[in-house]
């Protein structure tokens, strides 16, 4: 069976989704979702192990050898992203039970889990595939279900946020389709590995460069790179808590992965950096994103939106690592994919706990919560410290490699900027901490700690934040290997 792991990775959650529709009770659908997402995680871990040992895996769907048929191709890079996505999926699924029962009406709960599983399998499908057009198809699976998931939010603004996301997302997808089409017309192939062979011959053509541009814009829309981030803050703010936790930790990460995959594998690192000067385009964008979005986050009063702006800034860090165009920089990017998923997941899940108990995440409503919900707020503080980059948390590991990358290039002003902006993170996290610990609780005296079904998954992520902050050897090793794969063809 292990030979079929690549396809099972996607098909297991995908096949579970329609079954959710046959289940009347929300809890039953929930059970199925939990099982499917855990199975996905197990498969992803197995795949990562296999890839680390045996190298690249290729799975020809329908027995048609690539490039005739569609190929699933797993190397260290996407095995790593698969683990991130399915891991978050497996943590959020148990968490969703209580959270969703509170925030979504009973009749829609099985539908929620169907959409959740579809979104998960869509993201996994994007990540694992070795075929360009297949990317688009699974991108749409995940996007469509994401729009629906966001629209499930309680506030009516969830609807407008979802619509805006739909428009932006569709534009992004269409740009990607145009880009894929232009590449196809120049080479006649849709298979990524095949394209990587064929493209160098036509590097000089304007068509390939335009294709590059369209793919860049398309993916940057999806990953909400400043200034194409406008859809993200509201979408994350008004979606149900579990959805926000899931999306914030996975969707943009997969988009970053696609960017890396297309630019560094399909086009090849030499083309990206030497011909297209990708590094010089991305560097200023990333820096502006980090600085401006961190500043904006400071002035937010809705904590979910605060964290959403912080996410845009954090995406800037990932792109910054890419713009160093070195193995170290890319290691930082790949590490931050994982680490940011852990910390933002924990933070948004803590906010879900707050939402569960007091029905709001406004910073004033959280006054005095430190004593009412000690575990929840402790989780928030731990996640926040990780976001700031305090040593012994995962955030520190990312920062370390990012700065190391900057210094390797001799860009010490960039290093200072990265450090300064992590202080901005301290400021916005601290605003919440002060509210929670230094003000009196104005609300209902009976407010209690969130139930363990919410706290358990939240703290699981917090624990991982600390664990991989204290022992990052393995994650760094994987990220470095992945970075080397991506940077193949260019000096270290």
């Amino acid at each position: 069976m292990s030979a079929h792991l690549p396809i099972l990775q996607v098909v297991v959650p995908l096949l579970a989704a329609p079954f959710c529709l046959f289940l009347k009770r929300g809890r039953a659908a929930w059970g199925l979702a939990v099982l499917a997402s855990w199975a996905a995680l197990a498969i992803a871990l197995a795949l990562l192990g296999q890839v680390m040992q045996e190298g690249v895996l290729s799975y020809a769907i329908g027995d048609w050898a690539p490039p005739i048929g569609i190929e699933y191709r797993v190397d260290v890079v996407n095995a790593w992203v698969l683990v991130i996505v399915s891991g978050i999926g497996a943590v959020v699924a148990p968490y969703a039970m209580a959270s969703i029962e509170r925030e979504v009406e009973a009749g829609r709960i099985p539908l929620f889990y169907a959409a959740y599983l579809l979104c998960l399998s869509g993201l996994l499908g994007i990540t694992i595939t070795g075929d360009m057009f297949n990317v688009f198809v699974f991108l749409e699976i995940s996007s469509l279900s994401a729009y629906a998931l966001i629209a499930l939010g309680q506030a009516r603004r969830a609807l407008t946020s979802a619509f805006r996301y739909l428009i932006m997302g569709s534009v992004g997808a269409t740009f990607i389709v145009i880009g894929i089409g232009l590449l196809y017309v120049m080479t006649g192939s849709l298979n990524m590995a095949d394209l990587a062979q064929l493209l160098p011959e036509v590097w000089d053509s304007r068509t390939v460069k335009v294709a590059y541009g369209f793919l860049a814009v398309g993916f940057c829309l999806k990953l909400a790179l400043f200034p194409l981030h406008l859809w993200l803050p509201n979408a994350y703010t008004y979606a149900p808590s579990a959805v926000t936790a899931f999306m914030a930790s996975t969707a943009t990460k997969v988009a970053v992965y696609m960017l890396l995959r297309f630019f560094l594998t399909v086009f090849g690192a030499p083309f990206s950096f030497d011909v297209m000067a990708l590094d010089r385009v991305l560097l200023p964008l990333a820096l502006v994103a980090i600085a401006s979005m961190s500043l904006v986050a400071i002035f937010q009063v809705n904590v979910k939106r605060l964290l959403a702006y912080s996410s845009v800034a954090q995406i800037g860090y990932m792109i910054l690592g890419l713009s160093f165009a070195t193995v170290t920089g890319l290691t930082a990017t790949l590490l931050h994919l994982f680490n940011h998923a852990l910390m933002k997941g924990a933070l948004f899940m803590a906010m879900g706990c707050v939402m569960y108990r007091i029905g709001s995440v406004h910073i004033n409503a959280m006054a005095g919560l430190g004593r009412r919900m000690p575990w929840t707020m402790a989780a928030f503080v731990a996640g926040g410290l990780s976001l700031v980059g305090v040593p012994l948390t995962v955030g520190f590991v990312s920062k370390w490699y990012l700065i190391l990358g900057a210094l390797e290039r001799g860009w010490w002003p960039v290093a200072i900027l990265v450090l300064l902006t992590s202080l901005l993170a301290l400021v916005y996290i601290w605003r919440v901490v002060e509210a929670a610990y230094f003000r009196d609780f104005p609300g209902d005296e009976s407010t209690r700690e969130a139930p363990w079904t919410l706290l358990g998954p939240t703290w699981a992520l917090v624990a991982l934040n600390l664990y991989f902050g204290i022992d990052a050897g393995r994650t760094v090793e994987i990220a470095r290997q992945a970075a080397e794969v991506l940077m193949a063809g260019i000096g270290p």
Partner: protein
Amino acid sequence: MTTLLLLALGVPVAGAAFIALLRRNPNAREAASLVTAGALFAIVLRIYQAVSGGARPEAVLAEPLPGIRIALEAEPLGVLFALIASFLWIVTTAYSIGYMRGHHEKNQTRFYLFFAFAIASVMGVAFAGNLFTLFAFYEVLSLATFPLVTHAGTEKAKRAGRVYLGILFSTSVVFQLLGIIWVYAVAGTVDFEPGGILRGNVGAGLVPILLALFVFGIGKAAVMPFHRWLPAAMVAPTPVSALLHAVAVVKAGVFAVLKVTVYIFGFEFVAETGASVWLMWAAAATIILGSLVAFTKDNLKARLAYSTVSQLSYVVLGAMLANSLGVIGSGMHIAMHAFGKITLFFCAGAIMVAAHKSEVSQLNGLGRRMPVTFAAFLIGTLSIVGLPPTGGAWSKWFLGVGSVEAGQIGLVAVLMLSSLLSLAYLLEIPLRGFFGKEGEGAHGAHGDGGASGEDHARADGSAPGFADRGGSHDAHDPAHAHHGPQQDAHAHHGAPRWSVAAITVTAAACVALFVYPEPFYRLMTMVTGP
């Protein structure tokens, strides 16, 4: 031996766990604190014996990044710091038992809990085997002391907490971390090695920059302009101030500067490259400016705080002199100043608890009621100024000689001037206490004492019977937290028993260290080599 190192870290943490478990029973809780403190000191003593015998025990806790470990290693400098910190923790704990109960502080469990965490991180800083470990525990120390600084929970405490954490974090993250990663980038390691790790790895032009990143990045060393957090943290209860400003936080800062200079740069290498010359003058400026500001402060704790700012730069200066004598003086000053300054803080706290006075101008004549306290204050003052028969004389001596050897005669003048200044602003207190006329000045420029802030207000009414009831009235604390100001007039009962004991011990230590500075001196010569 490795076990001992781990125990040095583990015992305070275990103590914290016990404190949390015993939160319902104040006596047991405090007993746990004391026992932990005692045990820790015993452990550090054992480590001291081993290290002075030439052993260098090591322990690796984890390897967060490939090649970068959380590692502990006991070497003489660290042992010196650990000895001071663990010994003074016992004294401070004893002192705080009296103080906290006398003051009817809320959240006492939280206080002891974070106190224990702070000491655990101090041990981590002291025994850090590499820059990364040092940095990690340095940050943990900032976080662990934050709840202590903001203990009162008031708006003022919150503001102070912001300044405290803001400055400590921003300097450490922006400068220190950058320095660490830079060192790693050029040297490929961050381990502390005798003689330093940079020689041969880095051009002479980069050394001053890196050194500056550390001197300013270690914000806890309070080199101007990054000193603001220190006076701000004065809103904390007095035992915290004593711990923070005599032992744990500030000493962790200057200790880190010294350690980095010796084991990362190598002080000979610093001297060769001349990297530290301008930093010497930055430290000298802080010494003078700190003293001058201290002069203007009427609030006793604020005056002591600026005195600390000034004195810390002596240690930094010693490190920047980059010769054996300077380094020895620097290390000794860590010890001497710790004993001197903690005595002063203890006295300030005792005065506040017993007499509710927080301004210097209110102290006239108090010395006749609290002779022990004021006598101890005098001894502490002498030690800070550096006059015999106190330990402070030794460190000042070495620093002075070190300056001469470095060819910086100007610095000698700075040291002299600053000593005179500190003599002037510190001696005023015992002088007022013993010779001032009671009642004079107390209602002078500062009105009726209301200006002294809520430290004073909280002191109101809690002192009567404090000395004899110190044992067990914590349980019904909140019920009569404020008796009201009418009892103020009858409050002068002399210093509380627990406090007197603590004060006596530290003051005696100041004197004893003049006679017998041997252990610290020996440790420092082991650092500098023959």
